[in-house]
């Protein structure tokens, strides 16, 4: 008998969905609602946190102490999700996040993990040649900057609090949030103006 697990996955989905709904484990409405909620998570959430941390020292202190509470303070739902840790970039240290074992990602604040984050190339190279890896994004760290790689192997999820770019003095939190991208909060890129 052929291995049923090797059935084309779109057919498996149809069959498994029909069994799970027929047996009362979930409804198609549950699935649709879950998709809607998950689509609501996006890098814009994390960007709001970063922008507030750049403009509010008390919030920044909270964010570094307890990322989960800091997310909840921005009305981002965290209940039942893994704890969020925040890694602070400074003048001396740049942080880069990877999950070499799978694709652990701070989904509540950044949304679905991007394609590259899940790839074998990213997972292999981040721990062994991170500066070469950053070159894929054209990212070059200043001379003498220490590079810390965080391998997200277990129960936490990690995001980076990048450095605020120069030239943004006097900007509002909304203006600042608009320049913070997904990659800036994983450490593959640096926030830049324009």
């Amino acid at each position, binding site marked *: 008998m052929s291995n049923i697990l090797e059935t084309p996955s779109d057919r498996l989905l149809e069959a498994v969905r029909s069994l799970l709904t027929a047996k009362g484990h979930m409804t198609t409405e549950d699935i649709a609602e879950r998709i809607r909620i998950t689509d609501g998570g996006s890098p814009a959430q994390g960007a709001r946190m970063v922008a507030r941390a750049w403009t509010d020292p008390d919030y920044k202190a909270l964010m570094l102490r307890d990322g989960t509470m800091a997310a909840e303070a921005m009305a981002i739902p965290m209940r039942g999700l893994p*704890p969020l*840790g925040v890694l602070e970039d400074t003048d001396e240290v740049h942080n*880069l996040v990877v999950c*070499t*074992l799978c694709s652990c990602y701070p989904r509540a604040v950044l949304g679905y993990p991007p394609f590259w984050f899940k790839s074998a190339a990213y997972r292999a190279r981040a*721990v*062994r*040649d*991170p*500066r*070469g890896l950053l070159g894929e994004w054209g990212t070059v760290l200043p001379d003498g900057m*220490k*590079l*810390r*790689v*965080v*391998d*997200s*192997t*277990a*129960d*936490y999820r990690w995001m980076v609090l990048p450095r605020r770019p120069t030239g943004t003095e006097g900007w509002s939190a909304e203006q600042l949030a608009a320049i913070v991208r997904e990659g800036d909060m994983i450490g593959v890129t640096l926030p830049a103006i324009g």
Partner: protein
Amino acid sequence: MFAPGTQVRVKNDWPELRGPCHIRTPHYVRGETGVVVRHLGDFPNPEDLAFARPAAVRPLYHVRFDPKPFWPEGAAPDELVIEIFDHWLEAA
């Protein structure tokens, strides 16, 4: 429990050789020595959760390594920080 700053060695153990398993300690850090950054909290052991077995709650640490010696090219980061469970660590 390990206090921050404690030197620890990751067990040089390969459960992969003993049959089906689910391990959250990357292969590249087994047998290596690092320093405990901090205790992150206590979590059910994923090695048991993966098989729906009763899972004891275990301390989880952030451990910092100098990974330059891990690979020959010298391109590794200045430091590598990894989440590692208590039962994978021994005082070094």
